[in-house]
């Protein structure tokens, strides 16, 4: 079974994004970047499938400028067999990304595509579902458990009311939630080995996908700031403030 794992380079999750003074976007100059945490979980899941003998090949793919090859090398160091970089400097929407990925799915015919449920920059939570739609595949989003059995994937999903388990007909698209696994770290020897693993570069505009923006970003602003609060000395003072000052309890 072939597994395709799309990954995204994003702001490191420990870094607080800052808005540019001219309000055109978020300022990412000299900001620490990393693999999106949900994508790390996707890579880990694919590698575990390979270690279990279920997957035969794990292909990592990333779409973006040259810098995202750094995250592809990380995926290779973690155990992916090969990497594909779809190169573009364009600012892409989830639909564009899904369309580009659909081209790769057509070409490589992976039985399983595992993606993060959302990227922590755009917070869209769309790409996996869109890819499933475009390739007419079953989808298992927000997965906290996955078992491959015969031609099916049994996926337990984190939903608002608890946990839901679905049986997906393969080929399928699965998106990861936080509890699916705990990603490993790449070891130094594996980081060295990753440098010799194949990394193919494909120009996005050769894939025949119209990448014209459909959504305009008009403005990016700071969220409204909260007023500085007070430290109270006792439970009694807290309750009195909540009752008489904030008036949120009776």
């Amino acid at each position, binding site marked *: 079974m072939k597994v395709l794992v799309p990954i995204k380079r994003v702001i490191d999750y420990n870094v607080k*994004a*800052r808005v540019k003074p001219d309000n055109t976007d978020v300022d990412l100059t000299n900001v620490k970047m990393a693999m999106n945490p949900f994508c790390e979980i996707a890579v880990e899941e694919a590698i575990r499938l390979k270690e279990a003998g279920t997957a035969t090949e794990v292909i990592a793919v990333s779409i973006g400028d040259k810098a995202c090859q750094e995250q592809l090398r990380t995926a290779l160091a973690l155990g992916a067999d090969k990497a594909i970089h779809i190169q573009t400097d364009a600012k892409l929407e989830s639909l564009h990304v899904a369309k580009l990925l659909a081209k790769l799915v057509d070409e490589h015919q992976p039985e399983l595509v595992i993606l993060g449920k959302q990227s922590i920059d755009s917070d869209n939570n769309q790409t996996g579902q869109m890819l499933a739609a475009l390739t007419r595949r079953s989808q298992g989003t927000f997965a906290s458990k996955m078992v491959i059995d015969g031609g099916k994937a049994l996926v337990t999903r984190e939903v608002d009311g608890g946990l839901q388990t679905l049986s997906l007909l393969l080929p399928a698209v699965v998106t990861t939630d936080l509890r699916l696994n705990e990603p490993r770290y790449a070891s130094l020897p594996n980081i060295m080995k990753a440098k010799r693993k194949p990394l193919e570069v494909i120009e996005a505009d050769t894939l025949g996908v119209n990448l014209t923006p459909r*959504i305009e970003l008009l403005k990016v*602003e700071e969220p409204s700031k909260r007023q500085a609060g007070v430290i109270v000395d006792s439970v009694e003072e807290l309750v009195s403030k909540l009752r008489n000052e904030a008036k949120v309890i009776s």
Partner: protein
Amino acid sequence: MSVLVVAEHENGQLKAETAKVINAALKVAEGVDVLVAGYNVDDVVQSAANIAGVTKVRVVDNALFEYQLAENTADLIVEIAGGYTHILASASTTGKNTLPRVAALLDVSQISEVIDVIDSETFKRPIYAGNAIATVKSNEAKKVITVRASAFESQSEQSACEVEILSLALDNTLSSFVSVEQTESERPELNVAPVVISGGRGMQNGENFALLNGIADKLGAAIGASRAAVDAGFVPNDMQVGQTGKIVAPDLYIAVGISGAIQHLAGMKDSKVIVAINKDPDAPVFQVADYGLVADLFDVLPELESAL
């Protein structure tokens, strides 16, 4: 403008967030249609027909839609999408699951987690864990949108509007339902509760979450948690508040033994009043709290319960 709102429902009951999505939808049109797709949904249809601003409830009541799985639900929405300029759903796990599939099938770029409607094509949405608010304009002929319910008001009631029964039997050949583990709770739902009290890693274990029960009872509060508390297995996943969990904006949010990581704050910093109880005076949560209490939670929770 003609707007379709996809109703959010579970166990035969309409979810309160639907009225909030309708509130958002009414900012682009004077009346909206609501789609109820499910099985044995009579009560859901009734409740939806009584929400002010709803012109027509369109109903597909069929066992094929019992679990509202994305594959055939998306096909269904696409089937009836023709007449609409806007299709909206709650940014719940159901909406997030289905709507991007609809958008892709319609060849539309979706706008997720809208918190403000400027006009029929311009919307505000948080990005980067809510550390920035983007104003975006969609150039699509059809807008496909998920709405962050906590950012909108609810709707008043009306006398029941027209109900249209649709017979659209679309099969799902790709996926099937196996089982569900539902978290049973008598408490209000997190995303609509007027008061939320959440526990973090500082709670130390699942049993200690019982310390929050008495307080929640007295305040009519929902109980939430940080990711750390969920990861550690103290409480179930559906209690996670944050960037990648549930987004809440109650009148009162009480964070207990929670440090205040960016990802947690993203889910609660729009609450009206925030209280933080933490033994570390430098915990970042105090930077967003209106009232901070630097104390050991095991000392002050029992005290708080009896003071209420």
